[in-house]
């Protein structure tokens, strides 16, 4: 199990460790250009986002991202939360998924069968997340949250946002993971059983 850990997403691990320590898990200080203008995700992009979320986290014996309402939450966040820069990053990433599908399969991503989407997205994901040296003018970030530098930074953001949103929904937290809002007390040792699910933490520990 330890060897698996060494291969894990180090940035994510760092972010988690530093939440433990009390640092921000978010790229806090980055200056983001913003505007108060109402920005709506287009119907086209919503369709793409829905197909992407459905492929990334499909329905199994538990709800997938679509049944859990992730595309709706993300659409809301697109106008309520995202900066212009993030909006561009997200729609750009969706556009590149679609363009990639057209190139590989001669069909838009939404027109592929679920199996085709899955195969395509696995390859797209792998290529998009290849680490690359940051451009010389890239923001330095801070020691806790080094800036992301992968082949497709927008895709990294899209995937992370989609997954984090899914694992914050009531559906995911009550079926896939374990969450109790008021555990009632601390028990330092509990035997793992086949039914044990990872508990989600939102605080520092």
């Amino acid at each position, binding site marked *: *199990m*330890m060897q*698996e*850990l*060494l291969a*894990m*997403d*180090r940035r*994510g*691990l760092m972010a988690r460790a*530093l*939440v433990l*320590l*009390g640092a*921000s898990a978010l790229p*806090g*200080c980055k*200056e*983001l*250009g*913003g505007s108060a203008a109402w920005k709506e995700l287009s119907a086209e992009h919503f369709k793409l986002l829905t197909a992407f979320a459905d*492929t*990334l986290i*499909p329905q199994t014996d538990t709800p997938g991202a679509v049944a859990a309402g992730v595309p709706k939450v993300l659409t*809301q*966040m697109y106008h*309520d*939360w995202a*900066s*212009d820069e993030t909006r561009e990053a997200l729609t750009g990433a969706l556009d590149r998924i679609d363009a990639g599908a057209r190139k590989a399969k001669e069909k838009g991503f939404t027109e592929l069968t679920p199996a085709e989407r899955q195969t395509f*997205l*696995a390859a797209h*994901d*792998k290529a998009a*997340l290849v680490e690359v040296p940051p451009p010389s003018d890239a923001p330095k970030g*801070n*020691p*806790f949250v080094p800036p992301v530098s992968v082949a497709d930074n927008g895709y990294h953001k899209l*995937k*992370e946002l989609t*997954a984090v949103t899914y*694992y*914050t929904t009531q559906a995911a937290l009550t079926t*896939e*993971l374990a969450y109790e809002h*008021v*555990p*009632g*007390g*601390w*028990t*330092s040792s*509990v035997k*793992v059983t086949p039914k044990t*699910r*990872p508990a989600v933490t*939102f*605080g*520092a*520990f």
Partner: protein
Amino acid sequence: MAFDAIVIGSGMSGGIAAKELTERGLKVLVIERGKMIDPAKDYMDHLMPWELPNNNQMPEAEVAEHWPMQSMCYAFGAATSKFFAKDSEQPLSTPEDKPFAWIKGDHLGGRSVMWGRQTYRLSDIDFGANAKDGHGVDWPIRYADLKPWYDHIEEFIGVAGSNEGLEQLPDGKFLPAFELNDAEKQFKASVEQKFPGRKVISGRVANLSKAQPQHEELGRTSCQARSICERGCRFGAMHSSLTSSLPAAQRTGNLTIVTDAIVHSLVQDPKTGRITSVKVIDAKTNEGRTYEAKLFFLNASTLGSAQVLLNSANEANPRGLANGSDQVGRNLMDHMYGLATVAAFPGPEDSYYHGRRPTGIYIPRFRNVTEAADGYVRGFGYQGGVSRVGWRQMALQPGVVGTEIKARAHTLGPWTAMIAGFGEVLPNPDNRMTLHATRKDKWGIPVPHVEYAIGPNEKAMIKHIFDDARAMLEAAGGQVILQTKEPATPGLGIHEMGSARMGLDPKTSVLNKFNQAHEVANLFITDGSAMTSSGCQNPSLTYMALSARAADHAVQLLKEGQL
């Protein structure tokens, strides 16, 4: 209404000052620059994760405009943004190449509402450090002076912890400690066996592991292991001014609170040298008014209190009030922070834990205590924990999509250990806050300007913090995955202190051994600014103990007619 005493600031130290003064019969006014908080309406700790807006994030453009600095704090989010001052309204000036972060509350209770709650005593090793190695000036007190007040505060606020008999980290009046999990017990056993003199203990924390009658009287109950403490706790299970000290002051019938009142300056009677009143600006209407009293406690936080003193310059004191020594604003210190080492850890695969414990493990200082250091004075402690990694590290791998994400995410992850050093910083007069010569905030008060950098002693210590962490994790069977490279931006330790230090000599210090200004008899300062050295322990407990002790002394002086 006539007040005997005014307390400026309602946070960690101001809350305790108000409690102690009102309990001794004084009519007290607490002046808070931030907004009123009503826990019943304003806390968001009842919301389920999926009920928080935008996954508990504030809109990015709003963060960039109003909270670029505050959002560097882990506790900042949609559920807590009301507790953080807007950088756009309360800016801090620093040189371009020397950033310093001032994480700042903007509400009744101040940072006591979202603090990290780690609670440790200083020891005689700390109180004697300046005298021993010659950095800074000698503390005018020793551990014996503060011990009864540490006892007093711990019993009141409630601190979970274990007594360990350590010279460098004195024992206290503790509630039961939050037990280590099985992997942490394994780590503890390895470290203590392989490094005699080092200890791994449960992090001492101001959460009620078991509420006592004195807590229940104030409506507080035992900790529910939610670990979302920074949102404010409806159970009252963590100490904050809002759960403990202000309610205790309120029940005496002697407390008045005014919020949205920004202290501009203190007014001194040129004949007697005494403070007569406080000038405030109404945060909402910009109108000025004054409040009078006999006794003044300044608890506006380390930078805030220095700002008030410097902005209270008058004809006789052109350099600022109580500043004949020229030490106001100097000797700024903040623990080195963010020096983290993470390792994969061979913990028991069949063991897990339940609940979200509001603390982790603590490794008390051993360098320059039980073991020699390598070219530096003072030392450091570690905070951390060993836990099973969450869904994100398991699931978010390149090329992994679809059902595989779900399968990985719901598989219990392996154990990882993380320990991070908190390093002592020496008092250095050049690490300094001044008032900006021209910039003013929206209320016309000069903006604080901070110049701060760590020196050679701190840099030498950093190397040891990393090396010792690696050695302990590896000795316990861990495999180091990563280490940070440098400390976080200074200020992010959120332990800033030292800007009006205590000392024996009025020529080189601002406050005497009872936190009374050498030059102004009816002025006491008991927040972080009073600290003569920083130790490496989280400092809030010491501020509170100093506050209670100073209040007791001030009331005696008042009764004797000396103020």
